[in-house]
């Protein structure tokens, strides 16, 4: 049985329904990341928020970015963050206070920032924007990535390598015995 063209009784297109559901999932789980008392629960809601965002990319037609979002954020970064949570969990359990004592000022500041950004978005007309998303295949993106942006691509790979080396250097334990030290100690 085929679905009707629009949602029955409401007259909305199905894309709008998907948009609203994804918006609810993404904003709700982002709020839960910020407000949740348990840090592991925050991490898991962050995965849900990233999945909602991947849904938005797919809805716009940016398939390659949606796939990269699932691979990089849902797959890699959330695992990294959950590992860091595991390594830094104190035995007393979650802290009593989730927020700083000046959290009200942060709340006012972020509400003002959000309102200013939304006002500027709504009041601006984008003269070059089309009414619907432009279809862009993964082939177009790849052609652009490896022609116009190839220098940036190589620099990014260098940045990732240095970040991995720096991360290992920062996070390793300092009391690993140095083999050259052992040799000199046995000689003396």
């Amino acid at each position: 049985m085929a679905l009707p063209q629009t949602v029955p009784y409401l007259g909305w297109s199905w894309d709008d329904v998907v948009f609203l559901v994804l918006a609810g999932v993404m904003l709700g789980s982002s709020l839960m990341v910020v407000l949740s008392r348990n840090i592991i629960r925050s991490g898991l809601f962050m995965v849900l928020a990233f999945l909602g965002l991947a849904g938005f990319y797919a809805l716009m037609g940016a398939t390659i970015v949606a796939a990269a979002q699932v691979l990089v954020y849902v797959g890699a970064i959330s695992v990294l963050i959950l590992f860091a949570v595991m390594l830094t969990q104190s035995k007393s359990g979650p802290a009593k206070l989730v927020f700083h004592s000046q959290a009200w000022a942060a709340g006012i500041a972020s509400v003002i920032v959000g309102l200013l950004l939304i006002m500027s978005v709504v009041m601006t007309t984008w003269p070059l924007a089309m009414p619907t998303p432009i279809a862009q295949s993964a082939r177009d993106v790849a052609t652009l990535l490896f022609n116009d942006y190839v220098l940036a691509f190589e620099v990014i790979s260098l940045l990732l390598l240095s970040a991995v080396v720096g991360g290992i250097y920062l996070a390793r334990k300092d009391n690993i015995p140095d083999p050259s030290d052992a040799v000199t100690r046995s000689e003396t």
Partner: protein
Amino acid sequence: MSNNLDAYLVLACLMFAIGSFGFLARRNAIAMLMCVEIMLNGVNLAIVAFGMFTPALAGAGQVIALFVMAVAAAEATVGLAIVIAIYRNRRTPLVDEYASMRE
């Protein structure tokens, strides 16, 4: 609604505001890093939306979004390594107890 640039941009703004509140207000350093990721994702949504709706930016928006993701991954790696290194010395992930770093 799903065919409207403004709707995506408003969502991106809301996500950025939520992340900035969490970054300013949370005490846990790892929760602060999660909120930085949420802010970065909000900006990424705006970039992809501009790229998808503007013919002059066709394709470039997606490429820039991929670069932002790579830089965010590098940032998460180094940031979490710093948090773990500080935790090893101070035995707490709460940033307001790192008072000795002020001097």
